[in-house]
C-alpha cells in the first residue's frame, strides 16, 4: 500500500489518506496491544530501567545501614530517592573522554552492548502462562543460556580496546571467571530440565505447582546460586572490577554516559540470572491466588520472590571477601563442577525410579 506516494495528492485525498494512516496505526496498536505492553512495560523497557534505578538506590541505602551510615540523605527529602536521578543526569552531561590509541569502535559500542544483551534474555521469562514476550516453545532454556553466553565477550573486548594495563588484566580475569562459572550452571539447568521433562520455561514452571524444584535438588539450588553470583560479577566474585587492586578493571577508561552503561550492566545481568533462577528452582510465578485475579497474582508472586533474592544478594556484598584468581578457578573446577554432576546423577536416579 503506497501511503507515501498518495500522501502528496489533493487536500481531500490527503485527509482521507491521513485518516487511513491513523486508522492503520490504531488498528495495529489495538491488535497487538499485549506485546506492545510487554515490550514497553513488563518485562521490557520500563521494568529494566525501573529495576536498575531502584536497585542502585536500595543498594546504597542498605549498605550504608550495614555500615552504620545513612546513605543518600539530602536529595529528595531525607530518603534520597532522587539521588539516583541526579547521578544519572550528571553522567549524561559529563564529557566522554576517549583516550588516544584506543580502538574507538569497540570502545564506544561495548558498554551499550554489555548492558543490553542480558536484556534480550529477559524476553524469554514467563510472568504468567500467557505472558511470555517471546514464546519460543520448547527452545526457551537453551536460548536463554545461548544469549547469556555472549555476555562475557563484551567485557573482554572493552578491556582490550582500552589500551590500558589495568583494563587488560581485568579483561583476562573476566575470561577466567566465566570459564569456571559457566559449566556448573549449564549442568544444573540441564538437570532441572530433565526433572521437568521439557525445555519449555512455561512447562518447567507448571511442573512446580506442587513442589518447588529447590527441595529435591537443593544441591543444584546452591550451586546455581553461586554460579549466579559468578556470572553477574557480583561480590564476592567481582574480581574483574576489584577496586583495590586494579583501579576499576575493564571499566577504568570509560567516563560519562558510557560509565553509566557499564554500571547498569551489573544490574541487568543480575536481573536476568535471578529471574531464571526463580523460574527454575523457586516455582516461577506459582503462588496462592489473591482476590481471584490470576495474572495479577502471578506477576505479584514473581516480583516478590525476585525482591527477596535481590535483597539477599545485596546483603552478601558486605559479608564476604573476594577470593584470588587461582582460588576462583579451583572453586569452579574442583568443587562446583563435580557437585553439579552429582546433582545430575541424583536427578537421573530420581527420574528413573519414577519418584518425580
Amino acid at each position, binding site marked *: 500500500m503506497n501511503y507515501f506516494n498518495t500522501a502528496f495528492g489533493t487536500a481531500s485525498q490527503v485527509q482521507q489518506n491521513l485518516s487511513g494512516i491513523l486508522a492503520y496505526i490504531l488498528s495495529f496498536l489495538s491488535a497487538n496491544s499485549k506485546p506492545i505492553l510487554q515490550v514497553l512495560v513488563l518485562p521490557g523497557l520500563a521494568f529494566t530501567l525501573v529495576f536498575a534505578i531502584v536497585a542502585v538506590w536500595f543498594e546504597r541505602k*542498605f549498605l550504608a*545501614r*550495614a555500615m*552504620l*551510615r*545513612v546513605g543518600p*540523605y539530602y536529595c529528595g527529602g531525607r530518603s534520597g530517592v532522587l539521588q539516583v536521578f541526579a547521578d544519572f543526569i550528571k553522567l549524561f552531561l559529563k564529557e566522554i573522554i576517549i583516550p588516544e590509541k584506543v580502538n574507538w569502535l569497540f570502545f564506544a559500542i561495548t558498554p551499550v552492548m554489555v548492558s543490553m544483551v542480558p536484556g534480550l534474555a529477559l524476553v524469554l521469562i514467563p510472568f504468567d502462562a500467557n505472558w511470555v514476550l517471546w514464546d519460543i516453545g520448547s527452545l526457551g532454556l537453551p536460548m536463554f543460556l545461548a544469549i547469556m553466553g555472549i555476555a562475557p565477550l563484551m567485557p573482554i573486548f572493552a578491556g582490550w580496546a582500552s589500551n590500558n594495563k589495568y583494563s587488560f588484566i581485568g579483561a583476562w580475569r573476566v575470561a577466567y571467571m566465566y570459564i569456571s562459572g559457566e559449566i556448573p550452571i549449564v549442568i544444573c539447568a540441564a538437570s532441572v530440565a530433565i526433572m521437568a521433562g521439557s525445555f519449555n520455561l512455561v512447562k518447567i514452571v507448571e511442573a512446580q505447582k506442587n513442589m518447588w524444584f529447590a527441595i529435591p535438588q537443593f544441591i543444584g539450588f546452591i550451586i546455581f546460586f553461586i554460579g549466579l553470583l559468578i556470572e553477574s560479577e557480583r561480590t564476592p566474585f567481582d574480581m574483574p572490577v576489584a577496586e583495590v587492586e586494579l583501579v576499576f578493571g575493564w571499566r577504568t577508561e570509560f567516563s560519562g554516559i558510557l560509565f553509566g552503561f557499564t554500571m547498569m550492566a551489573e544490574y541487568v545481568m543480575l536481573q536476568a540470572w535471578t529471574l531464571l533462577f526463580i523460574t527454575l528452582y523457586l516455582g516461577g510465578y506459582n503462588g496462592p491466588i489473591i482476590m481471584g485475579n490470576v495474572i495479577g497474582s502471578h506477576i505479584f508472586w514473581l516480583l516478590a520472590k525476585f525482591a527477596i533474592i535481590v535483597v539477599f544478594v545485596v*546483603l*552478601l556484598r558486605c*559479608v564476604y571477601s573476594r577470593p584470588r584468581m587461582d582460588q576462583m578457578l579451583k572453586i569452579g573446577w574442583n568443587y562446583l563442577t563435580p557437585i553439579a554432576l552429582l546433582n545430575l546423577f541424583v536427578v537421573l536416579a530420581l527420574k528413573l525410579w519414577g519418584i518425580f
Partner: protein
Amino acid sequence: MSWIKRLLRPIGIVAPYIFRNSQTVAYPTERLIFKDRFRGRHKFYFERCISCGICARVCPCASIVLVPAEGHEKTYPSIDYNTCSFCGYCVEYCPKQALEFTDVVELAVKDRSTLKYSPEQLSVVPEIKDLVPRMKRRIEAYLTDKEMKYRKVKDV
C-alpha cells in the same frame, strides 16, 4: 561441619547492623558539644595581658606577633591562623592566663589575609548559633553495651 557454620555465621553477625542507629552527625542541623579542654579558637583578655612576649617566643609556628592596639598603650598579641597549629603553648605558658581556648572551629574564610586576627578580634568570640545558623540541636555521645549513640542535650 564447622566449616559451614563458620561460613554462615558472618551473615548472622552483619545482618542485625541494619537495624541499629546510624553513628553519624548531621552537621549543620546538629553539632557536638566539645569537652572542656577542647582547643579551638583563642579568646584574649585585654586587662590581663602584661606584654611580656612569652607567647610570641614560645610559639613553635611563629604565629604570634605583638602589635599595638587602639585605645590601649601596650602591644598585644595578634595570632595568624594560617600557621597556628593549636598546640596550646601560648595558653599554658602565659603567666597571667590572658589567652584561653574556646570551642569555635568555624574559621573558614574566602580571603586568607583575613585570617590574621588582631587583638580586638581575638577578644570577641561570637556565639555558635550565630556562626552556624542552621543548627537546631546540640548532641553528645554516650556508650551502651553494644553501640555508641548520640543523644540530644539541648535545643537551640
